[in-house]
């Protein structure tokens, strides 16, 4: 699916501004940004519930989606929703095909209850299962784990990963829960003021943040001159913070060769939370 230079305006305010990215089948992309950054609008455009915009989105005719909140009929049962939304799209809902998933999500035993009796988490789970109906090639999920407990969140995320890997479904997921995004996404897009402010690979991400504190500023200057390990995030009088994929052992080898002494050294994985804080809060 190719989102190509899409721009969406409402009167004078620009919601999305010349935004482009590609979502391949089998990939999971996370969408992260503040409220009002344009995440839901982008998702609605992909799902085609918004039609009027500039630019183009290709290959988005088979998209399952759950945007904002699950859309359910209160006085109908969970089973009705699954049957109905399969049937009107020309498919037959086969309960046995979904039994495993429904049991994992603790929905199987409440399928015959009216959804007005469901909790927020249960409605959310039903909304997710509904988005999987009719064999979509892509799924768009807006805050999918909203209202769910830790255990169910894990099950949902695991199921989404399985869908991407086994059924080659491309998934776009937005969430304020950065741990969820980090747990399953291959890539994350940072949305700010309707544009992609940055993009981060998450799968096989070996990037780490190293903080090195030298004995004196001369040692730091020598290190800065020599270092070819990654990009500098912050540099002080004796202290430097770098982003790198190089192993610690290789860094120590070089420090020994140059006879540069360290007072302190810390290494931490470059988490999504950290990237987010850097980007949006300047921390």
């Amino acid at each position, binding site marked *: 699916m190719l989102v190509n230079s899409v721009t969406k305006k409402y009167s004078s305010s620009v919601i999305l501004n010349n935004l482009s990215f590609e979502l391949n089948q089998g990939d999971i992309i996370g969408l992260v940004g503040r409220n009002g950054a344009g995440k839901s609008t982008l998702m609605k455009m992909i799902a*085609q519930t918004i039609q009027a915009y500039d630019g183009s989105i290709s290959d988005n005719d088979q998209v399952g989606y759950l945007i904002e909140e699950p*859309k359910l009929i209160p006085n109908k049962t969970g089973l009705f929703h699954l049957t109905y939304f399969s049937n*009107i799209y020309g498919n037959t809902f086969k309960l046995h095909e979904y039994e495993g998933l429904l049991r994992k999500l603790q929905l199987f035993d409440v399928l015959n209850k009216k959804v007005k009796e469901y909790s927020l988490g249960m409605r959310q789970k039903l909304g997710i299962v509904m988005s999987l109906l009719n064999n979509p090639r892509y799924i768009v999920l807006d805050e999918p784990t909203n209202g769910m407990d830790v255990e169910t969140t894990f099950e949902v995320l695991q199921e989404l990963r399985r869908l991407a890997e086994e059924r080659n479904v491309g998934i776009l997921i937005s969430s304020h829960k950065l741990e969820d995004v980090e747990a399953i996404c291959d890539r994350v897009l940072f949305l700010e003021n309707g544009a992609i402010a940055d993009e981060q690979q998450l799968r096989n991400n070996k990037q780490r943040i190293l903080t090195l504190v030298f004995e004196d500023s001369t040692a730091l200057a020598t290190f800065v001159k020599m270092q070819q390990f990654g990009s500098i995030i912050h540099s002080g009088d004796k202290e430097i913070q770098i982003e790198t994929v190089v192993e610690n052992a290789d860094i120590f080898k070089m420090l020994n060769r140059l006879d540069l002494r360290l007072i302190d050294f810390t290494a931490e994985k470059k988490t999504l939370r950290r990237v987010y804080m850097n980007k949006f809060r300047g921390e």
Partner: protein
Amino acid sequence: MTLRINKYVIFNLTELVKNGSLIVGMLAACVPAITMTYFILNGSTTFTIKHVSNFYCMLGMLAAVLLPLSFINRDYSTKTISLMNNTIQNRRNYYFANCIIALSVSLLYAMTGIVLLLVAKTLGVPGDLDPSLFVAFSVNVLLLVMTYYLFGYLLFLYNVRSGTVYGILTAMLLFLPNALFNIQGLIHNDILLDWIENFPGYFYPIMVGSDSFSPLQYSIGVFTLSVLFVVILKKSEKMEV
């Protein structure tokens, strides 16, 4: 993923039967007509078969409009419309499917009305019942139901709340025609009288069960229906949900 018109229509028509609303609507239409038949047969009134027909249409037309509209109400009030208003094709299919449901309900009410009139006539209710009345009755019912249905549909597209939509339709079908009828008696301006006479909001509910409309009234009716149909189609294709 394409919304299948036939599947949508069959599923939802079955729903109307299963949840009992079709039966309730039919009872609402038939009970006044049967009551009228009873009084005529007992000789307590001098009414004819056309009165039976009018009594059938009184609540019958309201039920025939509101029943298919219940799906639009359901989908817009619960926002499940966003699960079907996605591709342009699906938006059109949803609209066409709902129109087919309304058409089916209107035909059902027309047929039930004809059967009821035949039974009343067989039982001895006075008045002429020729085939032309059946044709006029069927066409009138179909035009009325579709026009009011599309008008209600349009109100939902403009986010008018369901209670207000139902209130407006009830007023338009039950009270407005009588109000206009009374106004007619008070005014002497021919142009204004012609306007009222050819206003669909007047001639549809007043004449639906009793006579065929004039050619001008049919033309106005078909034109109104066509305009509503196209406006809703265009609005459906563009609306954001």
